[in-house]
């Protein structure tokens, strides 16, 4: 596979062409981080107090789960807490095997969309 690229118009080598690009993007990534650190310094929350009701907000990447849990009532709670997240995880893991056969790509796109829209949609719902 790699030999086919050498026939291309110009050959790129990992060193130095690609490596210099990697280092460049790493520096950009680091600067982006530093900007956010300086703009939004970390804060320490209040001390644990079991006498005051407190509504915990999880990190943004768990907001979808936090929202999902609220939809399943009573003894069906485990569907929201375990079953649906498990389905998400399994869909994600098995995407290469879903993409199989005649309509493989379409099936894979549907699976990918379920995960992505589920994640983004529920996150937006929980913020609203």
């Amino acid at each position, binding site marked *: *596979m*790699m030999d086919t*690229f050498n026939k*291309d*118009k*110009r*050959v*790129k*080598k*990992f*060193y130095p*062409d*690609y*490596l210099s*690009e*990697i280092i460049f*993007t*790493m520096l*950009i*990534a*680091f600067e982006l*981080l530093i900007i*956010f*650190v*300086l703009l*939004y*310094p*970390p*804060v*320490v*929350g*209040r*001390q*644990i107090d079991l006498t*005051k009701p*407190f*509504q*915990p*907000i*999880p*990190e*943004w*990447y*768990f907001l979808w*789960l936090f929202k999902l*849990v609220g939809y399943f009532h009573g*003894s069906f*709670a*485990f569907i929201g*807490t*375990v079953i649906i997240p498990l389905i998400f*995880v399994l869909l*994600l*893991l098995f995407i*290469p095997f879903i*993409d199989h056969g005649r309509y493989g*790509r379409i099936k*894979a796109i549907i699976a*990918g969309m379920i995960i*992505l829209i589920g994640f983004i949609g529920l996150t937006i719902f929980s913020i609203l």
Partner: protein
Amino acid sequence: MGKVFDWLDRQFHLISPHKRFFQRSVPPDLNYTYCFGGIAFTYFLILVFSGLLLSIYYVPSENDAYKSVMIITNEVPLGWVIRGMHKWSASFFIIFIIIHAIRVFVSKAYRPPRELNWIVGSLTLITAMASGFTGYLLPWDQKAYWATEVGTSMVGTIPFIGKYLMYAIRGGAEVNAATLIRFYSMHVLYLPLITGILLWFHFHMIKRQGISAKL
């Protein structure tokens, strides 16, 4: 190369085994959408280094955890920068893993022979989120406590075995000092180790299989 590097090369033979790795060709039509994985890895490295620095001051005990986070944030010189870097690069790590996964999906790079690499990448996302969850408890403040209370109670909703699974995760019936130690150990030992192994696997397979050609 310089004299020092030449000397090191004579000792350890750095160049010859890595020659193929450094001089391999790269598809010429790569664009900058191919760098998201690299950016995510950059944030992983920052996470490891800032985490090592934080672990010097952090005390994982019921009585001192909150105090030590206070000290890191307010008293240690540049402590707030290190803590901010750790917190923000955790978010960026996950954002860029997701973007990287979308890019891989769009360019169909998960197809054979790279199925296993997709699975390893997805597992990295899961371990990253698990690290985020366990790390959230460590400041031992209101937010941390109640988020963990809710998060671990979710395991408890599984019929029949859920309760025992929840006790095993918490190390007791309630979120307490044992939970803090458990999560600390997960956060600083097990999960980084697992993530590191998965990433090594990930990069090794890229090295073997080459970068997937565009679309």
